[in-house]
């Protein structure tokens, strides 16, 4: 919402503050000023001058030399403007002054354009006559400005006077951010009321006097509202003998400052009242209203209607229409029809000021894809009691401006007049909520300034209908707080019973995961939760792969963001790819992010959101580096048992010979592997890439931060080294299973120290060497005991077809 300060001052005449003071104070009482712009910015030393004489320039066909009376002196100005003549009064910027822009109306330079005396083709020129563009405005806002050339001021303008002031440019336009609850503040009067209370000044709204001739509007028009829910009130007045003319300058200036282009008196009055009262109005040419009747009803599904912008609109039964006895003439609250629009020879006008259901207008305007000035106001839900004031104000202006003859009376369909709301008021409760000690009288004083009534007997605040946002005690507390001053409310800390600050167990495990990943050299990545369904093909997933069971967003930003991820792989590979393609070397990343697994599709209940730890890298390291990081994390998380890498089930996006499911205590908790070259090719990563994915939900269930000390045994250990030859396809994991199975209680640890294939080992076989350590808690082990255990282990290994190597 943009308005000129001068318009606010029209209703708060004593307001005398600087632009910055106004900004700060209004913002602190809740009418947030987003910014302001002075209309006279960079306009310096500009006065009204009168052209006394014009001569041709001796050396240039397109230039003329003018003698201009600027009040204090007569200056010579050379100009190329085609439109000036002797006797014209024009804005003149004097030597050393400034204008806002160039005559082409392009973007305004930040610090304006300085004007100095000089010579044009050898003839001295002192100052410059200004076009409206040079004054920082445009022909749109000053329709009386010539298409090209100098702005010509009125004949009675005093020579030497401040031209900027006379053009209405000594003003500041403020831009507000109005919150959606303050419908009343989407109007000049609403803001003026807030300003008056903020600065403790008197608020003087216009008092629309009842106008009209002896006739009755009801003799001209009848109104029937068929859907009272969607149209709680419909006011109609009639104006005859319309005389279309430009509106007065003051009205044009106020509209222009609000960004509204002045057109003619009739259009300008409706726009003016819309700004002033926040109530949109519509004018119909009464000749074109069949049967002199207005019917407000819903459209029928499939109806079509041509709006006054010439577009054909498809309607449905939830669109409210304004109709005459025969046809539709407008879409209620959104846009009038081509068939009833005002044309130049209009004689009699029907004014409509109605109240429509805000939600209906909002939804209709959304469905129709047309948001207009009017619909933007209506959709907020307007006060029906404001409609009459607005239409009366419009008629008052019609009379004052001589725009037509107002017919007496108003046709008003208002079956259920809205009544002021009563809200119980307990001043101590307000203080209790705010933590303040504000006297009751002070609170009541604020209410009175805000035009809120008070029933002292019932202790109820009587809320006028324009303040639909005030419903309960907390709302009243806010009104008190706003004008008492948020800054004056003390600062305290909550008292009462103490509470323990902590992370949840899940978050503690996640914190550990981050710490381990970071200490292992991985940096934290974050990627979006939604991605493209094409990701599945990129990862070579089969058509029936469960990962393809993804939740789809109904209204995504585009296909690339249309499904909720079922794995973090794509995010990780994309991030690695970005780094690879920017020639960053040796990249290790991790992400802790949710995946979204639907229980059924389409979604009936919330999906399973599972936090995943995804680790990924290219550069230094290999499969076993990654495995080490995983083991380190699991161990830190209290998962002390052996992690089993099971290569039997294959994932299509991983290297078939370099991948494993991670199994802990019989449960799959993730996977690890080298990315399949087909996939790295698609992601344009030209290096071996490794991923590990851990299901944090599963791990959190198994995790524990409990620590228990186990005594350090002082008896010596016995270590035996064995070297064996096994078939190549035997995995060391199988050998270790045997060692663990038969090692029994005495087994303390084992350590693989050599794996070898090549000369001296038969083809298809490998040599594997372990160092196995035994220890008893309560005694020094005898060789015999160790020998027995070793025998069992060796027997076990034989069953796998493994031979000891001598």
């Amino acid at each position, binding site marked *: 919402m943009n308005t000129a300060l001068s318009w606010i001052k029209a209703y708060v005449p004593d307001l005398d503050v600087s632009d910055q003071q106004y900004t700060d104070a209004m913002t602190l009482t809740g009418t947030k000023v987003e910014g302001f712009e002075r209309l006279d910015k960079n306009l310096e030393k500009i006065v009204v001058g009168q052209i006394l004489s014009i001569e041709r320039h001796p050396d240039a066909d397109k230039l003329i030399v003018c003698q201009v009376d600027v009040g204090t002196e007569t200056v010579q100005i050379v100009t190329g403007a085609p439109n000036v003549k002797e006797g014209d009064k024009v804005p003149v910027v004097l030597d050393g002054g400034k204008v806002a822009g160039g005559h082409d109306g392009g973007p305004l330079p930040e610090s304006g354009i300085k004007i100095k005396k000089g010579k044009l083709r050898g003839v001295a020129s002192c100052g410059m006559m200004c076009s409206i563009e040079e004054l920082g405005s445009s022909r749109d806002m000053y329709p009386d400005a010539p298409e090209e050339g100098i702005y010509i001021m009125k004949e009675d303008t005093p020579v030497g006077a401040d031209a900027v002031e006379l053009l209405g440019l000594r003003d500041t336009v403020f831009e507000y951010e109005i919150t959606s609850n303050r419908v009343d503040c989407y109007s000049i009067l609403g803001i003026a009321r807030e300003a008056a209370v903020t600065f403790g000044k008197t608020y003087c709204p216009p008092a629309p006097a009842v106008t009209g001739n002896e006739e009755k509007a009801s003799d001209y028009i009848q109104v029937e509202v068929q859907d009272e829910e969607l149209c709680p009130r419909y006011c109609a007045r009639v104006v005859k003998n319309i005389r279309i003319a430009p509106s007065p300058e003051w009205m044009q200036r106020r509209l222009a400052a609000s960004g509204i282009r002045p057109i003619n008196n009739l259009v300008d009055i409706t726009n003016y009242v819309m700004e002033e009262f926040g109530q949109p109005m519509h004018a119909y040419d009464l000749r074109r209203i069949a049967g002199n009747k207005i019917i407000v009803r819903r459209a029928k599904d499939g109806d079509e209607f041509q709006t006054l912008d010439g577009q054909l609109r498809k309607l449905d039964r939830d669109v409210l229409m304004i109709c005459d006895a025969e046809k539709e003439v407008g879409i209620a609250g959104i846009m009038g029809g081509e068939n009833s629009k005002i044309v130049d020879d209009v004689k009699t006008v029907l004014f409509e000021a109605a109240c429509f259901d805000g939600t209906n207008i909002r939804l209709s305007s959304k469905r129709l894809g047309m948001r207009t000035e009017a619909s933007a106001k209506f959709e907020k839900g307007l006060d029906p009691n404001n409609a009459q004031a607005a239409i009366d104000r419009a008629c008052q202006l019609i009379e004052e401006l001589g725009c037509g003859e107002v017919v007496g009376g108003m046709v008003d369909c208002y079956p259920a007049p809205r009544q002021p709301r009563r809200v119980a008021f307990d001043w101590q409760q307000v203080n209790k909520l705010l933590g303040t000690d504000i006297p009751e009288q002070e609170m009541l004083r604020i209410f009175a300034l805000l035009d809120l009534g008070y029933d002292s007997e019932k202790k109820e605040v009587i809320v006028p209908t324009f303040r639909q946002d005030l419903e309960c005690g907390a709302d009243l507390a806010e009104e008190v*707080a706003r004008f008492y001053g948020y800054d004056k409310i003390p600062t305290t800390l909550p008292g009462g019973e103490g509470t323990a600050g902590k992370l949840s167990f899940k978050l503690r495990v996640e914190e550990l995961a981050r710490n381990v990943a970071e200490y292992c050299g991985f940096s934290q990545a974050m990627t979006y939760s939604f991605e493209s369904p094409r990701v599945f093909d990129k990862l070579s997933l089969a058509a029936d792969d469960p990962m393809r069971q993804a939740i789809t967003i109904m209204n995504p930003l585009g296909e690339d963001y249309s499904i909720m991820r079922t794995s973090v792989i794509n995010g990780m590979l994309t991030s690695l790819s*970005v780094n690879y393609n920017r020639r960053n070397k040796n990249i290790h990343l991790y992400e802790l992010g949710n995946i979204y697994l639907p229980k059924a599709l389409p979604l009936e209940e919330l999906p399973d959101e599972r936090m995943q730890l995804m680790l990924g890298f290219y550069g230094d390291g290999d499969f076993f580096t990654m495995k080490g990081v995983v083991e380190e994390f699991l161990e830190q998380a209290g998962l002390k048992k052996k992690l089993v890498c099971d290569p039997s089930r294959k994932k299509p996006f991983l290297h078939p010979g370099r991948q494993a499911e991670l199994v802990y205590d019989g449960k799959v908790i993730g996977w690890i592997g080298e990315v399949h070259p087909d996939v790295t090719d698609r992601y344009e990563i030209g290096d071996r890439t490794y991923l590990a994915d851990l299901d944090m939900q599963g791990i959190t269930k198994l995790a524990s931060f409990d620590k228990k000390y186990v005594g350090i045994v002082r008896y010596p250990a016995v270590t035996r080294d064995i070297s064996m030859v096994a078939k190549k396809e035997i995995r060391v994991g199988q050998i270790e299973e045997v060692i663990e199975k038969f090692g029994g209680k005495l087994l303390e640890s084992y350590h693989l120290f050599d794996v070898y294939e090549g000369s001296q080992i038969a083809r298809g076989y490998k040599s594997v060497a372990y160092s196995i350590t035994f220890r008893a808690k309560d005694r020094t082990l005898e060789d015999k005991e160790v020998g027995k255990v070793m025998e069992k282990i060796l027997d076990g290994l034989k069953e796998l077809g493994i031979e000891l190597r001598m």
Partner: protein
Amino acid sequence: MKEKLEQIKAEALERIEEAGALEKLNDIRVAYLGKKGELTSVLKSLKDVAPEDRPKVGQMVNDVRALLEERLENAKAVLARAAREEQMAREEIDVTLPSKKAEIGHKHPNMVALEEVERIFIGMGYEVVEGPEIEYDYYNFEALNIPANHPAKDEQDTFYITDKILLRTQTSPVQVRTMEQKKPPIRMIAPGRVFRSDEVDATHSPSFHQIEGMVIDKNITFSDLKGTLAQFAVELFGENTKVKFRPHHFPFTEPSAEVDVTCFKCGGVGCRFCKGSGWIEILGCGMIHPKVLRMSGIDPEEYSGFAFGMGLERIALLKYEIDDMRLLYENDIRFLKQF
């Protein structure tokens, strides 16, 4: 005998003096003091000495032995020191050669900021909780006093999955879930991912993070809200940070406020960073609306509370002077390494 001893002594001392190497000292020790050493043999020949002279001669031998041992030890110490010094000189390194770092990974700037915020609130007794990212319309809107067809629903540009299920547009639904599950006193913060259908650009992202905070107890006041957030701002942005509360509107709080902090770049005098105002907006807050309390099973007659919400990216961007939000989701290591 005495002469012989003197001769041995003089000879031995001279050899010790000239030894110059640890091994030679050892040889000398063996040659004089060893089992077959010269001094030992003198001692052995003591039996040939007249008995009355034996103590005297014995004493002399022992004196010579003691002297030699002392000199040997001294010479050994000198040589060992020299050898150590030579080793030290030889082992000198160029300390300006590059380091061998164990490369530790870096946290995402969002996480750095979040951990700072969490640390402050955990210190004030707040529990960190979470809620689902895919949420019911009820929790995201209705239970927060945003009924069906409320314009605020449009303002938030919601991604829908079905009519009833959506991607949460705010972390505020965690307020409702917490109130349903816990009895006051409640002090919690709820960080998490939220979604709004904004096109990606330097200041917008369809997916970002918020941190929600909520306190419910008997006698919680707006002044408590002010005090809490003032303390938070000082902890997060530095000692001299001031806060400004501006009236605002949120459907689920009343009274509501937006909070500005003094610009941490210019300290409040106004600069390009704060667009000349000296203030930077960082969060929204207010007293929890009695309707919201009631809907979630908390009696507004008995309890009151406040809530606040802030954008994590906004804080990270401001605090670390990151000028483009897209950097946060590209994961370029040259960016991540700076945090």
